[in-house]
């Protein structure tokens, strides 16, 4: 039997739901005993991915965004998926400062922030089908070290 704990969320791609998505994932990860900073990191990464699905995947139209989270040991996995237009060139999209919507005041730093705050970011996309962003973060790494040193 797999030793994982999973949750799945489906919600409308409305800007007002961005906060809801952040808080939901934050609530789910509480069982890992994260520091405030770890929670902030994950919330920021989730915010970036959800915003991308909304603005880019769906071009602001109201469709469904799917979030799936699971925990394996001390590692949190977060998957954010949309069934929108897909990314033409994933490598280019993940370049810092690159954006296809400069007129919307987009900084082009979404992926850069995700990569900075999570241990790993994996992107799968198909034009016309949708995009999947999978990120993971091992929680409590820093604190383990601290305990060892204090002994």
């Amino acid at each position, binding site marked *: 039997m797999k030793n994982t704990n999973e949750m799945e969320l489906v919600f409308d791609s409305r*800007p007002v739901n961005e*906060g809801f998505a952040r808080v939901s994932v934050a609530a789910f990860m509480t069982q890992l005993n994260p520091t405030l900073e770890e929670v902030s990191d994950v919330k920021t990464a989730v915010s970036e991915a959800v915003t991308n699905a909304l603005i880019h995947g769906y071009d602001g139209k109201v469709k469904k965004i799917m979030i799936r989270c699971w925990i394996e040991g001390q590692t949190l996995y977060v998957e954010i998926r949309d069934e929108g237009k897909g990314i033409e060139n994933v490598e280019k999209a993940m370049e810092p400062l690159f954006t296809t919507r400069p007129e*919307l*005041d987009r900084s082009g*730093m979404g992926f850069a*922030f995700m990569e900075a705050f999570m241990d790993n970011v994996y992107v799968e996309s198909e034009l016309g089908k949708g995009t999947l962003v999978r990120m993971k973060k091992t929680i409590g790494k820093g604190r383990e070290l601290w305990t060892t040193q204090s002994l």
Partner: protein
Amino acid sequence: MEYQIEENSLTIFLPAELDHCNAEQVRKRADMLIEHNHIKYVIFDFANTNFMDSSGIGVLMGRYKLVYLVGGEVWAVNANERIRKILKMSGVTKIIQMFEEEKQ
């Protein structure tokens, strides 16, 4: 959105969370005020802000693009440690001014 105008200076008191949703509202209001009041200096007050993602960076950068043409400046003030970390990470601190209160 709470704001304050003094001559050609606009201070915007940002909300608790500056994400894409709130950034849109801030952007629209700010641009209207900047144009209508010939604003040269835009000051973003982060005193109430405890969350910001790259959408917030976009708001700062976008307003800078507006005012630098008239020789203006954009300031970020009263940012807490987390917000300052995000501002520095994004590199936006190269073009906007930061003001940090001396803690006693």
